[in-house]
């Protein structure tokens, strides 16, 4: 992140710094600006909802809220894992393929065996994700191969495995028991239960990243890997863990995907990695690491899904959906850059004032 780089340049003595080591006044100031960043996403979200509702009041009907939330749930969950990876200046492009593999293998258990416990199905899905995440993690953290290369390769490898395992078969809804399908269909009013559960998981994840030593370490690694190494942060271990968790989360998302769509073939989750990375960046996580929150990323996912839904409800061509996603991405990056430059400038001004 620009801010941290600039900051550590101006304070060479603090070279091991993450945000923690910035003087407390400045810390409050920066967190205010970054909170404003999250409010910015909320602002755009609000405008979209308002405009769409003005044209089509049914947009805010309970059923549609349910649709949007359940779509968001899968992406917000994936965005949590992606956030952990991206703040450490890495990227995980294999999540869509992990989701696909987990979705088929876990739900296919119902076709293979009678009387499978739903807990076992979820455990298998998460387990598959964890194993694949560990493969990524080992190559990246201990093999020292850039994550972009490793996960781009595993995107294809895992999808290839998926196609090999699945072949032309598919899991069909009639083979899935109702308690499995109701994981995503059960709701509390207009709010699906699964969305509440995932929201708690995302808040938990965000809290861990923000307040636990091992979570903060990921930000430090993303700010400056060299500096993080110098202050004794176990970089390989932390990065490895981030990829393992991201994989496990994608595995969990796969089981939820299977429950929601009911018909699963080898194409499940194709291209999800791009939507998730977009959500993460739009949600204020810096693509070059060091800053951003899982909650921001989840709001980013909510924003993308809301825009998606509002365009369909308004009957606007789907082309605009992709164009708007791209536009938001550029806006988010420009905003980050702008905030970074502004903060660096004002921090320099402050520290020079303190010095004199």
């Amino acid at each position: 992140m620009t801010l941290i780089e600039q900051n550590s340049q101006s304070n060479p003595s603090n070279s091991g710094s993450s945000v923690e080591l910035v003087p407390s006044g400045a810390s409050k100031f920066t967190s205010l600006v970054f909170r404003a960043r999250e409010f910015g996403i909320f602002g755009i979200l609000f405008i979209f909802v308002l405009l769409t509702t003005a044209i089509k009041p049914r947009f805010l009907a309970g059923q549609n809220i349910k649709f949007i939330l359940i779509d968001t749930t899968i992406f917000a969950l994936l965005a949590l894992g992606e956030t952990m990876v991206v703040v450490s200046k890495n990227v995980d492009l294999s999540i869509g393929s992990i989701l696909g593999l987990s979705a088929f293998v876990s739900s296919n258990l119902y076709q293979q065996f009678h009387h499978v416990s739903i807990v076992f199905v979820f455990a298998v899905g998460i387990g598959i994700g964890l194993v694949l995440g560990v493969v990524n993690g080992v190559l990246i953290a201990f093999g020292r191969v850039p994550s972009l290369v490793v996960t781009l390769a595993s995107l294809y490898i895992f999808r290839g495995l998926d196609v090999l395992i699945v072949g032309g078969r598919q899991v069909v809804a009639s083979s899935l028991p109702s308690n499995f399908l109701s994981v995503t269909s059960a709701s509390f009013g207009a709010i699906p239960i699964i969305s509440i559960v995932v929201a708690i998981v995302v808040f938990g994840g965000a809290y861990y990243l923000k307040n636990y030593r091992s979570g903060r370490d990921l930000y430090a690694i993303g700010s400056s890997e060299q500096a993080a190494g110098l202050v004794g942060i176990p970089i390989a271990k932390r990065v490895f863990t981030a990829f393992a968790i991201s994989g496990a989360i994608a595995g969990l998302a796969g089981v939820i995907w299977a429950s929601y769509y009911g018909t699963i073939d080898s194409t499940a989750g194709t291209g999800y990695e791009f939507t998730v990375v977009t959500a993460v960046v739009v949600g204020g996580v810096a693509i070059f690491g060091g800053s951003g929150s899982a909650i921001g990323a989840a709001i980013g996912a909510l924003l993308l899904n809301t825009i998606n839904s509002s365009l369909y409800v308004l009957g606007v061509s789907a082309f605009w959906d992709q164009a708007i996603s791209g536009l938001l991405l550029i806006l988010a990056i420009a905003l980050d850059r702008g905030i970074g430059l502004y903060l660096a400038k004002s921090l320099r001004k402050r520290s020079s004032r303190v010095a004199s």
Partner: protein
Amino acid sequence: MFSKRKTTTALLLGASSVALVACGTTVSSSTSTTAASTATTQAAASGGSIKTGLKVVVIPKVIGNSYFTTADSVQSGGALAALQSLGETGSETSGTAATPSSQLPVIQSAITQGANALVISATDPTALCPTLNQAMAKGITVVTYDSDAPTCRNLFVNQASTSQIGTSEVDLLAKQINSTGDIAIVSATASATNQNAWIGYMKQELTKYPNMHLVSIVYGNDDPATATAVTQGLLQQYPNLKGIISPTTVGIAAAAALLDTPQYRGKIALTGLATPNEMKKYVADGTVTSFELWNPANLGYLAGYAAAELASKAITNTPGQTFTAGKLGKYTIASDHSILLGAPYVFDKTNINNFNF
């Protein structure tokens, strides 16, 4: 030293990924040439016999789709089964996405490998043409099935007449909603040849039902998530929607999963093209009353058979020519160089459990 090692690992990883990508995108199932071709030389108007050992590459729109697997595989009695029975070397291969950019490299590699015939479901009516024309220029027989590329093939094997599918789906839905109310179509991609042709006939047939109004056509791109999202949009945009036609297996499965709630079940009728297994749950619980499809295995079988006939020069693609396609019987080539499999088959709760594909 360190950076050198890093590079090597990266290269190795890159190479292995390429190898695996190749595995992933081209799942082939080759059949041996051992089968005898004795019973199959009863033949064509031009009187030639079918050669054996021809290399025939079957290229569905996408790999891993159950519909195409049924159409192509030996087990189901599809295209590869026909080729095996004729003593040809058949293989099935395609990309992992149903797009021309994913299908083109597969066609090119089939040409390079010296195929005698291609049996292909076109992801786009025109985008594949330069490559398919190149194939035909090299003497390779090009047979399209399922989805046509009308200007660049020798023969099209039509699953059901375009007009029959379009009109019968509208009739099926009309029966379910008492010929009254707003209806919508959830299609595949906006450029899919077969989809657009069917939709054309649906519109024509709808003129017979003055109280049924087609309010929207949306495109789910044969992706479950997109199909779900566009159907959600429909439900919100048109609160009075009474029926949905989805002439694509992915679209109808996504729409059925969405409508399978007490709020919509039985209130919004859904019909279209689907495989029986996909719809079993929804027919059982009343979300879907009836839908239709041709027999994909027979479609593939006929396409495989026709490709072998053409590549052997046992028949030409001249309109009016007839040939006997093994178990399926006698077919006549129509004026647009196509052959028609037969009428679509309607599935409902009385017969759905007799099928397993």
